[in-house]
């Protein structure tokens, strides 16, 4: 990456190590920068440490008894390594966790309300909802049905919309394309790109579907076994022979789902 344009990073993560249960070293010195207003992809196969990286940034590690044991994470020049998850959301970091975890027994409209920041007035919230329904017209149609009965694509849209209500300046998404038909992936990624362009929101996109992700991001990181093994522009990554062989091979967009998916669906405390 020779032509690195120097844009102030909104997020920078330096040599971060994460331990689960004080014993399991899940990532081993990961450094990542997200430039302001850019879309960045974090690619890698199952168990590589992508979700752990996002949880370290959003503060959701704590709920899984993980912690950052080394390194630091800076958001807009503030050290957030030890900050409460709730504080980080207030600062503008929102993490769309893997598996489209919408509030199933709430309607889409209530899902959006649930995410409203503490000080948001009713009219601001309504305005925010309308904006989200404009981006995702499918959600508008089903705004008053039970979210548990939405289709997978609609639930992913709702999960993204719910994150948008928190007014993030950095949106992180964990495998939003997983299990969705290619046309839906294209639709959702198109909307992400549109929001990025219209609102200047920075995006950190975790994907196994490298082909689709590299179409919309400007730069990508490849992570393997808890380490960043490659960082280059999307163009360079697309033409890299290793990437082509391992991650873009097979012609289809989705890859390496053959490995047993590490499922963190265990609902915490439920």
């Amino acid at each position, binding site marked *: 990456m020779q032509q690195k344009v120097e844009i102030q990073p909104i997020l920078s993560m330096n040599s971060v190590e994460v331990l689960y249960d004080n014993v399991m070293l899940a990532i081993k010195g990961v450094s990542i920068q997200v430039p302001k207003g850019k879309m960045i992809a974090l690619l890698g196969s199952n168990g590589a440490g992508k979700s752990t990286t996002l949880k370290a940034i959003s503060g959701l590690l704590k709920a899984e008894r993980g912690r950052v044991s080394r390194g630091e994470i800076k958001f807009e020049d503030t050290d957030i390594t030890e900050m409460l998850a709730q504080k980080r959301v207030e600062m503008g970091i929102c993490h769309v966790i893997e598996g489209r975890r919408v509030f199933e027994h709430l309607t889409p409209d209530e899902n959006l309300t649930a995410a409203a920041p503490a000080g948001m007035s009713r009219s601001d919230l309504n305005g925010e909802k309308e904006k989200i329904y404009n981006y995702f017209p499918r959600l508008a149609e089903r705004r008053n049905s039970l979210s548990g009965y939405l289709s997978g694509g609609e639930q992913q849209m709702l999960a993204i919309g719910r994150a948008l209500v928190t007014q993030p300046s950095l949106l992180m998404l964990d495998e939003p394309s997983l299990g969705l038909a290619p046309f839906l992936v294209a639709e959702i990624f198109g909307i992400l790109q549109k929001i990025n362009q219209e609102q200047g929101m920075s995006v950190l996109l975790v994907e196994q579907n490298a082909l689709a992700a590299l179409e919309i991001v400007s730069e990508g990181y490849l992570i393997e076994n808890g380490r960043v093994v490659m960082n280059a522009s999307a163009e360079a990554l697309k033409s890299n022979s290793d990437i082509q062989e391992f991650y873009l091979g097979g012609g289809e967009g989705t890859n390496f789902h053959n490995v047993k998916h590490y499922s963190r669906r265990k*609902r915490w405390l439920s």
Partner: protein
Amino acid sequence: MDWVFLTELAINGALTGLLYSLFAIGLVLIYKASSVPNLAQGGLTMVGAYVVLALARDVGLPLWAAIPLAAVLMFGLGFGIERVALRRLAGRPVVMILMLTLGLDIFLRGTTLAIWGGTSRSMELGVSYEPLFLGDIFISRIHLVGAGVAIGLFVAFMLIFRSRTGIKLRAIADDYMASWSVGISVERGVGLSWALASVVAVAAGVIWGEIQGVDQALSLLLLKGLAVAVLGGLDSILGAVVAGIILGVVENVGADFLDPLVGGGSRELIVAAVLILTVMIRPHGLFGHHDIERV
């Protein structure tokens, strides 16, 4: 068949049932937040009644002031339980939280016994014991008052759960992790649920304390309350209300038929049968949420 008598049994059963609901609403609130039936709800109810008595008799406040003040104190106690005990259990198996509530119940019973002793005290709400006659039907006034309180609380919670705070509470009930991910303070929400359940415990403690006296036996309300909550679906307030009425009617009418046959004790058998049959036939109860199978 004596229809007037049967109607009287049914109406008084329904009123008693609503008093079970009054208790069970507290169980539902905590189940929604913490995914466990709160085994200390009986203890909390008893403490609620004792606190009212302490404020009324020992401090000398009038009841109309003692009851709301007790509600405020118990609200604080509910928050305190989350802060001191529950928060430390984050991420542990749910059964640990269940054991915590059991420990809390034993603690509350021990503490009240140490402070106020074992003799029963009376609430003396001043509700007349003259029965009310509806035509030929005889109705207990205190039961009518208690049923009114239960319905009032039911309506209040329906409104609360439609508010923004209430929607956040329902979100927490659905998914802790997703709640954190959008900045909802799960800890505060769980604390609020315990606080509200403790306020419900004051209401139940006052009404039941008036009916059966304030002593350790108040904590045994847990058993019927649990049966009602399970029949209603554990996480449904509407379920708790409907199930309370059903259990009350079935118990009152059924016992009248069965008692002469089995020679007493049939009330307990009916409650046991309802609880066991619900778990076996309809584990989600009448109105309980179940995990939605996703496509």
